[in-house]
């Protein structure tokens, strides 16, 4: 019943021109944007702090003059980290609150559910944490300032080619995330003149000895491993150590790069390994101020610096777009495609032709039990 009602509603809205929104925001002294994030459930662990970050950022913007003298406000909706709630939230924001811009979602399933609704209504969606590669082609109005999983593969391939490796062996888990990274690595590496031999394993695998042996027999200097969880690296590294194989260079996925627990057992073995990392660059001062303010306001350290930094940047980019072109989804979309090398909390921000973040991950190297950025 609800679905039918929603369908009817969306049909009505699609037939109305979207430019009629001036009646809503025209004379008012507030510009309202929508936001969809997981505010309850497990994923509220991300959603709640990001909501606070966004609200603090809005406060900061309004204290500095707002949008051409108008106040910026966020209308919050709960996406619950699932497609059903996110699409209901999106319908509500677009049809009832008449927003032109939506911040979020956090979970990829939220963003993917928002995409077709927003695309049809010419409303911009800017996700700050969804990494699924399919968001790249989710629509013209769909943006994200968090890197796609696929961009990791590109980073790895470029680093390998730049270091002069021409022959690589790849060990990848059979999950959407890992295969996505692996496919892009192989594509870019072979396009750059490299040669890659791939071995995949199912997620249930606990015995990697023969897979590793096959890769060892290829005789490459570079091993690229893409596992879904740090725990898998625990087994892979153990079995590599036992078979006495350590090629000249090993690349581990961001999953290992974001985790320092592996160093407890493999600090020496991992020395010199490469990985990918995406987070606050540690130098952008306004974000450091926000972190201080967060701690003052909520009495705890800002968690998830990576997602928080992208959320902070996203709210600012949207505010700048609204200031420059007004509260109009289509114009904001065009503005975002023109954003180039905007300096923010995660370094330089540019959107590519798909609305994806250009670049993103930075290369890190294991050094004495820590991940150190490669310049």
């Amino acid at each position: 019943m609800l679905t039918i009602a929603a369908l009817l509603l969306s049909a009505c809205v699609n037939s109305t021109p979207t430019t009629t929104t001036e009646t809503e925001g025209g004379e008012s002294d507030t510009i309202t944007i929508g936001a969809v994030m997981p505010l309850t459930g497990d994923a509220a662990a991300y959603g709640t702090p990001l909501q606070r970050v966004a609200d603090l950022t809005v406060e900061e913007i309004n204290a500095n003059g707002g949008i051409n003298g108008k106040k910026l406000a966020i209308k919050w909706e709960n996406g619950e980290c699932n497609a059903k709630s996110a699409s209901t939230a999106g319908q509500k924001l677009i049809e009832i609150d008449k927003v032109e811009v939506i911040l979020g979602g956090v979970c990829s399933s939220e963003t993917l559910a928002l995409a077709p609704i927003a695309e049809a209504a010419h409303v911009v969606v800017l996700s700050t944490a969804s990494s699924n590669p399919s968001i790249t082609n989710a629509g013209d109005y769909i943006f994200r300032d968090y890197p796609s999983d696929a961009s990791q593969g590109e980073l790895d391939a470029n680093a390998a080619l730049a270091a002069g490796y021409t022959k690589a062996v790849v060990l990848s888990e059979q999950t959407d995330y890992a295969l996505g990274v692996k496919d892009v690595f192989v594509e870019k590496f072979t396009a750059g003149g490299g040669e890659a031999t791939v071995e995949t394993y199912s997620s249930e695998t606990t015995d990697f000895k023969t897979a590793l042996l096959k890769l060892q027999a290829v005789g490459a200097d570079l091993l690229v491993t893409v596992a879904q969880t740090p725990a898998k690296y625990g087994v892979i590294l153990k079995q590599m150590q036992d078979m006495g194989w350590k090629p000249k260079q090993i690349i581990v996925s961001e999953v290992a790069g974001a985790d320092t627990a592996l160093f407890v057992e493999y600090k020496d073995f991992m020395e010199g390994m490469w990985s990918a990392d995406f987070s606050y660059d540690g130098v952008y001062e306004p974000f450091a101020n926000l972190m201080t303010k967060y701690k003052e306001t909520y009495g705890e350290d800002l968690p998830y610096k990576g997602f928080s930094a992208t959320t902070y940047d996203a709210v600012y980019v949207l505010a700048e777009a609204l200031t420059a072109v007004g509260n109009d989804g289509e114009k904001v979309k065009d503005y975002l495609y023109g954003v180039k090398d905007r300096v923010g909390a995660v370094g330089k921000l540019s959107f590519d032709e798909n609305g994806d973040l250009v670049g993103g991950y930075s290369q890190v190297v294991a050094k004495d039990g820590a991940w150190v950025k490669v310049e």
Partner: protein
Amino acid sequence: MSILPQLITNGIIAGAIYALIALGLGLLYGILRFVNLAHGEMAMAGAFLFYFFAIQKGLPWSVSAILAIAGVVVIGLIVERCTFRPLRKANSTTNLVTSLGVSFLLQSIVMMIFGPNIRTYEIGQRVSKSYSIWDGAIHITPNQIAIMVITMVILSSLYIFLKYTRLGKAIRAVADNREVAAILGIHPNKIIMIVFGISSAIAAIAGILIANEQNLYPTMGFLLVIKAFTAVIIGGLGNITAGVIGGFLLGIIENLAIGITIAGVSIPTSFRDGVAFLILILILIWKPTGLLNKKTEGSRV
């Protein structure tokens, strides 16, 4: 350098792991006449109890191993008393489904206590103690050697025990015909309890050794039992020696199948389980009683 020696070694190690689980599974099948799917959880419980005593409580490994084995024997006896004994007269399908239930129950309990994460017996920086044989043609660790040796030791002691001791003969008698054995003054419930105890102890030893090789997590038992079950069917149900041989065959064939490259083409590692179950299907078509079983009935243990 040819990778063949290492491939065969990998196969033997994997085979020994399957065989260790298959041993207990086969022993239980012989006397109960159903496949106890909860057997893998006994191994898992052993691995976690050892983790609790050795890593969390910091007890010496030998003491922890004894405590873990004793703990699993107690769990095994409780499971037997509370679930399988009341169902003694039920058919094997009922018992099979019950064992599946017990398996999920044990998994959930361990998950509640220890959480779903993968754990390891490593403490601090790990240093590999692997031996290099034939100029590095084969690498093998003490734990891998232990898995192979202990499998063979347990198999031979079990064989001697069943064949030559009074109790072993009683077990075989109950396996052959429970009613006739009872008439002759053998108490079937007592014998079944003893068999449960022995198989639980073997499972605990297996669990500790396997966890030391592949790390431990609450669902490890189910994956183990599936492969061991395949091994038992390949070798022949109800014959512990056949189960062990089936285990080694499965491990070696699996590793050779995915490891050998012919004219630049090889089977990807992700097809490893596919290879195992293909073998299973072929065996079931070609020799439904298993490679080593001459008879379907009789000589069950």
